[in-house]
């Protein structure tokens, strides 16, 4: 049997962490994926150079809590804060790897977050980024960062979210070549846990959407994966979100540069409330 050229292969998994509580919690989902694929876990923590520059400015003021007034920032304090977060991230990766009996590595670099993550992605198969919840008082890796990484990295990007599993993926498929990669990635995720893939067939018309959906069903069948299909008309953000509200949880799989499906990634990442896999 010939090998699927589009198959998602996960030999090395890069997990870029910001050491926030939800980021560390989301690490579990990445570790489970690595465990099923028997891949190596590569941890990365970026000490954001932009934050250090910010702290160096004498005019910058920081408000830590409701009880404290605006105060000046100190570079040393920022360095300590970042170092502490790096240590927590290292401990979390080690713990996750040991629990799943995975080989792992971890490094801390200082620089621009997007640049460093993109640079590190060259040596891995999949990049994992935690998606924070956009709530005040809690740091998050903004969907914007995720968008930039997904645009620049040449690897699939998995945006994980604390408390949400990857199994039972939903794929957005519009019949494009990029969509085919998304379909293959979804099939790989489903095969790992024996689940069913939900296909959201996207088209400008109902017929086109249905055609895409059926094509996806066929593509999945060839890969030995069962499918449930639904149709979504382009432009698709609202449609996709509505459809997602009616299907079981699990990762949402899109082609990278998801404009192809008419879906702005930042909004989708913010509102979909589930992990997102950007396939390429």
């Amino acid at each position, binding site marked *: 049997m010939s090998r699927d050229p589009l198959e998602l292969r996960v030999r090395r998994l890069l997990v870029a962490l910001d050491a926030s509580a939800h980021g560390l919690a989301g690490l579990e989902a990445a570790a489970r994926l690595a465990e099923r694929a028997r891949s190596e876990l590569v941890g990365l923590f970026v000490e954001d150079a932009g934050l250090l520059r910010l702290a160096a*400015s004498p005019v910058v003021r920081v408000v830590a809590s*409701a009880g404290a007034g605006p105060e000046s920032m100190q570079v040393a304090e920022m360095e300590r*804060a970042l170092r502490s977060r790096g240590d927590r991230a290292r401990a979390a990766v080690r713990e996750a790897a040991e629990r799943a009996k995975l080989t792992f590595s971890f490094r801390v670099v200082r620089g621009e977050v997007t640049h460093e993550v993109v640079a590190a992605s060259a040596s891995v198969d999949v990049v994992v980024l935690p998606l924070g919840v956009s709530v005040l008082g809690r740091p998050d890796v903004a969907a914007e960062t995720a968008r930039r990484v997904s645009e620049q990295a040449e690897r699939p990007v998995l945006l994980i979210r604390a408390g949400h599993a990857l199994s039972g993926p939903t794929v957005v498929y519009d019949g494009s070549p990029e969509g085919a990669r998304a379909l293959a990635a979804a099939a790989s995720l489903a095969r790992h846990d024996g689940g069913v893939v939900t296909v959201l067939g996207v088209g400008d018309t109902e017929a086109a959407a249905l055609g895409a959906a059926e094509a996806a069903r066929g593509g999945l069948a060839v890969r030995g994966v069962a499918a449930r299909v639904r149709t979504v008309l382009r432009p698709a953000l609202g449609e996709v979100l509505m459809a997602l509200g009616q299907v079981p949880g699990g990762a949402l799989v899109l082609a990278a540069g998801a404009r192809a499906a008419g879906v702005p990634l930042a909004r989708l990442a913010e509102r979909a409330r589930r992990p997102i896999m950007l396939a390429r």
Partner: protein
Amino acid sequence: MSVRPLSPEELCIRCDPGRFAFQSTAELEPVSARVGQERAVEALRFGMGMRHDGYNFYAMGRPGAGKFTAVRATVQERAAGEPVPRDICYVDDFAASHKPRHMLLPAGKGKELKRDVEQLVEELRTVIPGALETDEFRTRKHTLDEELKGRQESALHELRARASKKGIALVHTPMGFALAPVKDDEVVPPDDFAKLPEADRKRIEEDIQALGEDVRAMLAKVPRWEQEARHKMKELVRGAMRAAVAHLLEDAKKKYAELPEVVAFLVAVEQDVLENASAFMKRDEAAGVAALLEGDEGAQLRRYQVNLLVDHSETKGAPVVFEDSPAYDNLVGRIEHLSRFGALLTDHNLIKPGALHKANGGYLLLDVRNVLLSPYAWEGLKRALLSKQIRIESVGRVLGLGSTVSLEPEPVPLDVKVVVLGERRLFYLLSAFDPEFRALFKVAVDFEDEVDRSDDHDLLYARLVATVVKDEKLRAFDRTGVARVIEHCARLADDAAKLSAHMGKLCDLVREASYWAGERGVELVTAADVERAIDTGVTRVARVRERIYEEIERGTLFVSTTGERVGQVNGLAVLELGGFAFGRPSRITARVRLGRGEVVDIEREVELGGPLHSKGVLILSAFLGARFVQELPLSLAATLVFEQSYGMVEGDSASSAELYALLSALADVPLKQSLAVTGSVNQHGEVQPIGGVNEKIEGFFDVCSARGLSGEQGVVIPKSNVKHLMLRGDVVEAVRAGRFHVYAVESIDEGIEVLSGVPAGARDAAGKFPEGSVNARVEARLEALAQLRLRLGKDKDEDKARGNGDKP
């Protein structure tokens, strides 16, 4: 003066079977065990009728007198016509779970409520999760989530927008929200900022400061927004649940509308359910003590359960409870604990009832000795009766020994009649030393030890036998069997004119006689079976008696049954071992010589004589001094000994025997060793009654029989004891055959004549005893001793006058 032996008919008042009209007890109507106990029964009825405080009972009498049976029967008769008391339940006080509340419900309602609440909780476990999983609820919950999120985002967005207009960025950093001047989306480097005009720098710094204050103000609002969101969420959940549970609870409230306390409880349940929805959602995550208690599922739901402490759904009339193990906890109840992971946990479901709970509204029967022997039980019982409530507390808590947090169940009002059963001695001791006793136990129920022997009572006893036979499915008794039982009851009473009221012994005799009839393979129990039951009963416990008699027979213990001796007589004592009494003959001897009037009781000198025995001996001196040579000092030194006695001698029943020995020694008149003597004596020489007369006579008879009855042997007893005689059949038959004799005497003079065969002698007009009589000889001897003493005293005085006195 001549004392005649008693006739066989005087030795045992037989019960004539011929006067019974029945052939067997199967024809007789059963009778209660309260025969002859009219006084006690009347006291019980009086006390039960008195509903005022403190009219509890102390039922006293000898152990085995049938107190319990009689009390229970009497109390049950009355209780059957009294109302059934309320069920006692404990429920959680949701406002203070460590203080469970009680509910007193009409009989049977407790069980019903318990079942209904269990069913209600089961339904809630289904209904509540369903209510929180509807699309409508989810949508509204999602809306609330979005509302909070939107509120926060909107505030942040507005701040960012204002900052942006002023060329300032709001950045989220690990240290908090930072405000920095930006240009072309990049933070203005410090060097560039320094190059700005003074006015611009100042403006930017002021803007940053002002925005910083705004950020702080916004952050200050976040907790309130979250609190509001949580409140709204809680209200949403409550609303959804209220709608779901309301109809279930409404149904229950309607059902118990006439019981306000139940309705109040159901309202409290409803409120608590609404506050604790999680208990119905994720049972294994319901943390805390309750989760540990339950172990796995349904943990917190235990708080809704009804602990039915006392269920009267099947009770008829007022309860009559006998607690045979009246430990403190068994009386007032206890709070049990479960051990979970090393911790001891409890809740209102682990409250267990005590006997006071079970008997509340009715009657509680207790053995007072058992209560007194159980640590703190008596105090606990009194405290409950005084306070008229049952407070469940551990002994440690009552004593202030422990401060562990535990439950404090609401005390249950107490309305109970307590009957404690026990010995008279304990009643008198409690009366004397427990100041609260008489106030709490005002009704003394005094059970007779014996009843008069009459035709009516004989027939009642026959019915009593019939009752035992019927109750215990024994063999019926024929008339002879019944008659023999009645005779034995008279023997147990130690009185031919009385019947023992010791129901325990009577029942045992009936059972054992029935057994022996069975062994014979007959259906009707006869006198022979009763006799065998009595004999075998004695045989089983008579080992010590047999050994003593054996040693007498072998000559190890000196007891003569033939011949005559001066200053020696056979006395009779009674030994009681393990409830079996038997007579033991003992040799008593007396020696006299010149002295100062002392009659020395050797038993007393070596502290083997009890006070009553010593009293008897001292009376002898008084008797001698008063009767003989009144003008001269009593000048003898006499010693009295219970030969071969190595234990305590108590009682004065041998005082007449000692006097006979003393008179014999003084008069030098031999006494017949074929006779034994019992009876006490007073200063006037009158012989007084003693106890155990039957055992004493039989004891000497057995010793004589073993050696062979000579026809001379017999026993001298006080005449006042004749009415107590209920001797064994073989003794009576021996008397009838003239081979054994029983003499009843009223005075020492009569006794000494029987024992010596010599007239005692009475003073004539000149104040002299007849020549040769015992009394004349005694007086002569005492006079001689007195004269001798006077002469010796005179000689001594003369010696002193001559200067020949003793040198110091």
